[in-house]
């Protein structure tokens, strides 16, 4: 099935203090219809910026994209003007954000904010839009849609606001939903409900979802494919089961070892801590960016840029190690 989103060799630089600072270098990944791709990485890895590059909400606007292409259902987005992008946003590409407390307009009711979006994209009357809005709220399991519609955002709890935001995003049945860490600010129990909602939306209406998170646990439960980013570059992409069980890139392996788990291991044993610090993506550095922290770093890693290796079943790794990092090595 032809992927609805094909990003190849995307590079982005933002207007910085002394000239444009590169923050994304040669990012490639694709997303099929009805598939959930997990975009994983630590803060500063550029995962949110990748999302903003797709629907062009980058601070510098369209001109921040300095290279590569973003194909949405065969159509090239990078060249689009702001006006053209407006027809895509909300209709074909929807987005939800991390901070539920500030993501809705405080001086408008939920009804007003939902009907505005529907009326713009689907040329409906306000009455029809209200019905569709109430119907959307039911879909996201809000118990009393009528009352919620007439509420102001400050009257709703964090979890409720996140559901309203999902309802708004899905109200025009978009083909792609970008979720920028939607559950990070929520409690564990509420987070599980939001994950359930996203899974439901994906299965029922076939919406492709890019799920951005720094929490490997959430990603492993929700996503069928995973892309791991490090300091503005794509370290590894592949099916979730493979990336989690047989990670090809040393960074992914180290990240998995650093995640505290409570199923295995005794109390008070030590977590594997990756030495050193994440480099600032805007610094120009030769060779593989993970080299200074990588236990397998070879001389070539410090000089050459690592190629993309294919490990089969669309599992790709950008690393010099033959067939990626082997199983038995320094990282427990």
């Amino acid at each position: 099935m032809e992927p609805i989103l094909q990003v190849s060799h995307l590079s982005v630089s933002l207007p910085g203090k002394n000239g444009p600072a590169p923050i994304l270098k040669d990012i490639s990944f694709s997303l099929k219809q009805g598939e959930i791709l997990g975009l994983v990485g630590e803060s500063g890895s550029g995962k949110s910026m990748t999302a903003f590059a797709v629907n062009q909400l980058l601070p510098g606007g369209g001109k921040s994209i300095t290279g590569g292409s973003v194909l949405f259902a065969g159509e090239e987005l990078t060249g689009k003007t702001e006006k053209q992008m407006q027809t895509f946003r909300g209709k074909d590409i929807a987005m939800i954000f991390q901070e539920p407390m500030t993501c809705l307009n405080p001086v408008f009711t939920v009804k007003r904010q939902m009907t505005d979006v529907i009326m713009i994209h689907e040329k409906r009357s306000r009455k029809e839009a209200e019905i569709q809005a109430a119907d959307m709220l039911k879909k996201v399991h809000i118990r009393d849609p009528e009352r919620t519609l007439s509420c102001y955002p400050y009257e709703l709890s964090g979890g409720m606001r996140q559901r309203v935001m999902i309802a708004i995003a899905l109200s025009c049945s978009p083909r792609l939903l970008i979720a920028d860490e939607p559950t990070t600010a929520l409690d564990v129990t509420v987070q599980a409900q939001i994950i359930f909602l996203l899974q439901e939306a994906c299965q029922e209406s076939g919406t492709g979802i890019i799920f951005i998170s720094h929490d490997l646990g959430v990603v492993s439960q929700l996503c069928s494919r995973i892309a791991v980013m490090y300091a503005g570059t794509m370290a590894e992409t592949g099916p979730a089961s493979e990336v989690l069980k047989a990670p090809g890139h040393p960074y992914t392996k180290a990240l998995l070892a650093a995640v505290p788990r409570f199923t295995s291991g005794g109390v008070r044993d030590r977590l594997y801590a990756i030495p050193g610090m994440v480099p600032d993506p805007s610094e120009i550095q030769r060779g593989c960016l993970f080299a200074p922290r990588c236990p397998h770093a070879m001389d070539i890693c410090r000089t050459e840029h690592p190629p993309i290796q294919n490990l089969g079943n669309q599992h790709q790794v950008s690393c010099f190690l033959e067939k990626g990092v082997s199983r038995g090595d320094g990282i427990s």
Partner: protein
Amino acid sequence: MTAFLEIKDLTKTFTLKGFFGKKTDVHALNGISLSVEKGESLGIVGESGCGKSTLANLMVRLEEPTSGDILLDGISIAHKKEKELRKLRSRIQIVFQDPYSSLSPRMTVEQILTEPMQVMGQYTSRERTERASELLELVGMRSSSLRKYPHEFSGGQRQRISIARALTTEPDILILDEPTSALDVSVQAQVLNLLTDIREKMKLTYLFISHNLAVVKYISDRTAVMYKGRIVEIGPSLSILTSPMHPYTKELLAAVPIVGKPFCPPRETAHETGGTDAERGCIYYDRCPIKDEKCRRERPVLEERQEDHEVSCWKL
């Protein structure tokens, strides 16, 4: 024999002044009783709003409890006046959650680390600087950063400076109020390992507060689960995590996403909780899948069901 740190029926109620003198009481803590041995690490886990941060503030007396008592090595610190409290304060210190607001932006690292000793009037100024650079090395940072300002450091490094500051007064107990929640996974691992090493080296007692169950397992021997200002279950960390008894603990563990664990959709009844709880009956009544008539009428009390594993629920 009383334990090293004894918390007796601690309660904290905030009164919100409505108009016309109409007061609404919010019970942040509702009769918390805990005892911690010297050198032990007790984990406290709960969702936001369960009162765990209020407990942290009470332990270091940033606020005074409404009732109940806190005994540090037999000495009550709950209701002491500021003057008598001063000597005891050096024995109990805190590390806050937010790396970006726990260090003063206008002070160098040296000033930050020497401030506690200055306030307490310990050591000469030369000794203080020496001790500051010693502690910096202890937390894995170069003593050359003494002259730098907080904005020149990453989140993980700032937490290390906060830990160093808490150690300057040679405390017996460290209150850790979600010290790694704002950090990335790899940085969190570094800070957790550091805390474990320091605890062994300096024989410290920890009160580790977090909303992340998995993190608590790595650092605490025993764990208490809090819900709406009360302790619903307390026991050895491993048995709490592998064989939980209270329905709320089970709901929490089911919801925590673990790498490789299949996702089980949440029960429909788990809806938004909020507002004040019912006066009588179990506080978890409205979300409990196994509730019955007795739960509605009587409030369960913490009882020991297994070896050193207490839970407050009628249905077990």
